[in-house]
């Protein structure tokens, strides 16, 4: 088990006042709150922060932690001394934060899993089990066509000996056609088991798309960069475009410039109304890597009086 440096996690010094600790917590909580933050590791950071604050805001826990931690550094291998907490009396300040079950093994080895009284906690005889939430990555193609996919989730669980273990939960899930990023699939009865005759909770899967090699997604609309030859853009042409529903022909108007946006109506993700597919033209230059090709470019330079920088006044 690793020693956790709660002061470092909160960015405060060891002699910080309780007010300083509170201020540091509030600031970092806003920064890493998973509903607000776009930091990739926000959820883990927020949990770690909650755990650090749980200890440092409580004078008793902080004193116990200080006594223990004086000789340790964050990340160092840690083994709590046998009777380390004798001599400390916990008045049952307990947990105030939300998910005490999420605290690290390090925390649990010092303060126990649940100071509120664990199994003695009163619950109604029949309660619906908790809902679970998870994010899943799917391919854009699956959202377009609909699909059945096997999804593996990991969830912490408690085994017969009372140890926390990681359990794999394998599900065959139908991905509804037209689902968008951020939407949820609800699997009834796949959350925690109910208590007594209470029903099991539900499992909500939040959809995210794997990055696609050429489409970008905004809601139901798709965006595609389409390379075109200079003569296709200048003279107009009909070219093939890959869409999720198959190849379609697109007419490029004469005199198109790079960045021109053309719309393939209804070729985005299905729905009511379906999204559109926007094709953004990108003029690709043929390489001047042979003598005839170079000669051709020289000829263009001679025969076309073209100043691409005329708008810049040079």
């Amino acid at each position, binding site marked *: 088990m690793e020693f956790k440096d709660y002061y470092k996690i909160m960015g405060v010094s060891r002699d910080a006042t309780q007010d300083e600790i509170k201020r540091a917590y*509030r600031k970092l*909580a*806003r920064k890493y*709150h*998973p*509903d*607000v933050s776009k930091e990739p590791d926000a959820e883990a950071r*927020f949990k770690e922060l*909650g755990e650090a604050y749980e200890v440092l805001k409580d004078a008793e826990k902080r004193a116990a932690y200080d006594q223990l931690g004086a000789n340790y550094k964050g990340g160092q291998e840690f083994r709590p001394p046998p009777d380390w907490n004798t001599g400390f009396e916990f008045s049952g300040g307990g947990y105030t934060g*939300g998910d005490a079950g999420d605290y690290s093994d390090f925390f649990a080895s010092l303060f126990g899993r649940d100071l509120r009284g664990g199994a003695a906690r009163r619950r109604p005889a029949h309660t*619906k089990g908790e*809902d679970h939430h998870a994010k899943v990555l799917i391919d854009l193609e699956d959202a377009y066509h609909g699909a*059945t996919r096997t999804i593996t989730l*990991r969830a912490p*669980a408690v*085994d017969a000996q009372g140890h926390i*273990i*990681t*359990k*794999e*939960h*394998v*599900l*065959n*899930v*139908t991905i*509804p056609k*037209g*689902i968008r990023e*951020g*939407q*949820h*699939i*609800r*699997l*009834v009865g*796949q959350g925690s088991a109910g208590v007594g005759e209470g029903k099991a909770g*539900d499992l*909500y899967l*939040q959809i995210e798309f794997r990055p696609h090699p050429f489409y*970008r*997604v*905004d*809601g139901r*609309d798709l*965006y595609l*960069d389409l390379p075109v030859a200079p003569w296709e853009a200048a003279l107009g042409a009909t070219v093939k475009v890959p869409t999720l529903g198959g190849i379609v022909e697109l007419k490029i108007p004469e005199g198109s410039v790079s960045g021109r946006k053309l719309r393939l109506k209804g070729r985005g993700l299905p729905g009511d109304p379906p999204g559109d597919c*926007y094709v953004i033209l990108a003029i690709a230059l043929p390489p001047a890597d042979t003598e005839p090709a170079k000669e051709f470019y020289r000829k263009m330079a001679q025969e076309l009086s073209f100043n691409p920088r005329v708008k810049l006044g040079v």
Partner: protein
Amino acid sequence: MTTENSLSIFAIGIHEEQFQLTLADLCRACAVHAERIVELVDAGVLEPEGREPARWIFDGASLHRALAALRLQRDLEMNLAGVALTLELLDEINALRGRLRAMGEP
């Protein structure tokens, strides 16, 4: 690691589009008393259809909005006006991020 297989195939719809919730459903799913949900409606965080609480119908998207609002209230000690403003700004930021991504920004 142990593995639990659920062999059945779950055929279900998009929660946001195909499910509606009553006030009671929403309270149960969020594990809060009705007063907390009524507060969120009064603050404009949730916008159910129907005139009075007993007839309110929430769309599927309300569930995750309500959960986020309750988390913000609890974790950041925010008041309702702050929560409402935060969620509106987050909607706007997410829409702008979507546009940026569509334009090819990372």
